[in-house]
C-alpha cells in the first residue's frame, strides 16, 4: 500500500509538472526560483508521504506542499520574518483598469492562490481549504473579497 501511494505521488508530480510550476511561478515571479521550488516540493512530497494519513487527499496535499514551499522560499529570499499572509494591503480599493497583469497584482498572495486554484485549476472550495489548511468559510470569504477587488461579480452557483 505504501509503495502504491509513493508511485501515485510520483506520477501526479510528473504528469502535472506544468501546473505545479505555474503555481510556483505565481509566487516566485521568475523562472530560476520557480524551478528551485518545484524540485524542493517534489523532494518534500516523496520524503513526507508517510505523514499523509488520508490517501484520497494526495492531490490537494501536493498543492499544499508547493504553496508552503513557495512561501518559505519567498520568505528566505526577502529575508522576512513575517508571513506574507500577515501583510495588510494598505488600500482596499477596487482595481479600475483592465490589464490582467495589474489586476492580479492587486491581490495578495493568498487571494491570488485561491483565485488560481478555484478558477484556473478548477479545485472545489473544500479542496482549496485543504490545500491552504483553512476552513471552507474562510476560503469563501477571501474569495469574495478577492473577486470584489478585481470587480468580478459572479452568480452564486459559480462558487
Amino acid at each position, binding site marked *: 500500500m505504501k509503495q502504491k501511494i509513493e508511485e501515485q505521488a510520483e506520477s501526479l508530480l510528473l504528469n502535472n509538472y506544468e501546473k505545479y*510550476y505555474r503555481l510556483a511561478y505565481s509566487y516566485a515571479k521568475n523562472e530560476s526560483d520557480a524551478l528551485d521550488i518545484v524540485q524542493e516540493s517534489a523532494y518534500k512530497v516523496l520524503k513526507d508521504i508517510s505523514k499523509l494519513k488520508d490517501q484520497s487527499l494526495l492531490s490537494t496535499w501536493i498543492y499544499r506542499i508547493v504553496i508552503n514551499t513557495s512561501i518559505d522560499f519567498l520568505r528566505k529570499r526577502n529575508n522576512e520574518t513575517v508571513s506574507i499572509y500577515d501583510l495588510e494591503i494598505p488600500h482596499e480599493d477596487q482595481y479600475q483598469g483592465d490589464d490582467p497583469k495589474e489586476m492580479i497584482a492587486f491581490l495578495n498572495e493568498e487571494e491570488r492562490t485561491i483565485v488560481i486554484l478555484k478558477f*484556473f485549476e478548477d479545485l472545489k472550495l473544500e479542496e482549496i481549504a485543504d490545500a491552504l489548511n483553512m476552513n471552507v468559510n474562510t476560503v469563501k470569504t477571501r474569495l469574495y473579497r478577492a473577486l470584489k477587488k478585481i470587480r468580478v461579480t459572479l452568480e452564486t452557483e459559480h462558487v
Partner: protein
Amino acid sequence: MEGKDRLNDLKEEYVNIPVPAAAYDRMKQGIKQAKEEKRRRIIMRSLKRTGAAAAAVLLTIGVMANLSSVTASAMEDIPVLGAIAKVVTFRTFEDKKGNYDAKIDIPKVSIGNNDSGQVNRSIEDYANQLIKEYEKQVTADFTGDGHYSVTSSYEVIADNETYLSLRINTTVIMASGAESVKIFNIDKKTGKEISLKDILADKPGYQEAITESIKTQMKDQMAKDDSLTYFVKEIDGDGFDRITGEENFYFNKNGELVIVFDEYEVAPGYMGSVEFTIPKSTVEF
C-alpha cells in the same frame, strides 16, 4: 468589461506562463533525491539493529557455538591456497521456516603452524551475528507474514606472501535487498588478523593520501560517466568524508591496496558495494 471576461483574461495570462523543459527534470531530480535519502535511512536503521544484536552475541558466544554444532555442519574442502594457507568451510548454518531462510557458510582458516584461533573466533563471531539476527527476525514475526532471507558465502580474494584476504559476502533480503561485505585479512607470519588501522600505524600521511585518492577517483568517475553516483561529504553534506581505518581492504595481485565499501556506505544502493584501488604511486606498503 464584464466580470467573466476579466476572469478569462486572467486565466489566459496564467496558463500562458511558459513552462521550461527543465521543470520536468527538476521534478525528477527532487523525487530521486528523496528516494535515495530514504533508502540510506532504512539501511542505517538496520545497521543499528545489527549493532545491538552484535553486542548480545558477544555474551552468548560460548552457548551459541555449542548449540550450533548440533544444528548442522558440513565439512568441505576448498582448494589449498599456496603451500601454507588453507581455508575450509568449518560449518554451514542452514534453515528454512516459511518465508524465512538462511544459508550461512562459516569458513575456517589455518596457516602453517600458526595458531589461527583468534582469527577463526572473529570469523565465527561475525557469522553468529548474522545467525542471531536471523533467529531474532523469525521469533519476532508473530503474524507470520514477514520475509527475511540471509545468504552468506566467502571467497579468498588474495593470498600472497604476506597476507591472506578472506572476503565474506552477505545478502540480506527483507523489503529490499542489502549486500554487505566483510574482509578478514590475516598476517601470515603471525596468523593474526590485521586491520587497515594496523597497516597505517607506522605510515604517516597515508591516511590522508588514501582519502584524497578516493575522492579524486569518485569525482573523475562521475565526470566521465553520468550513470555513476558517489556521495562525497564536502559536496553532498553526507557520504564519504575520510578513511577511518575501519574500512574493508585487501591487496590485489599487483600489491596495490584496494578499499572496499559496503552498499549504501558511499554511494546509492544501485551502485552496490564499491571498490577503489589506490595506485602504488600514492601509497606503497
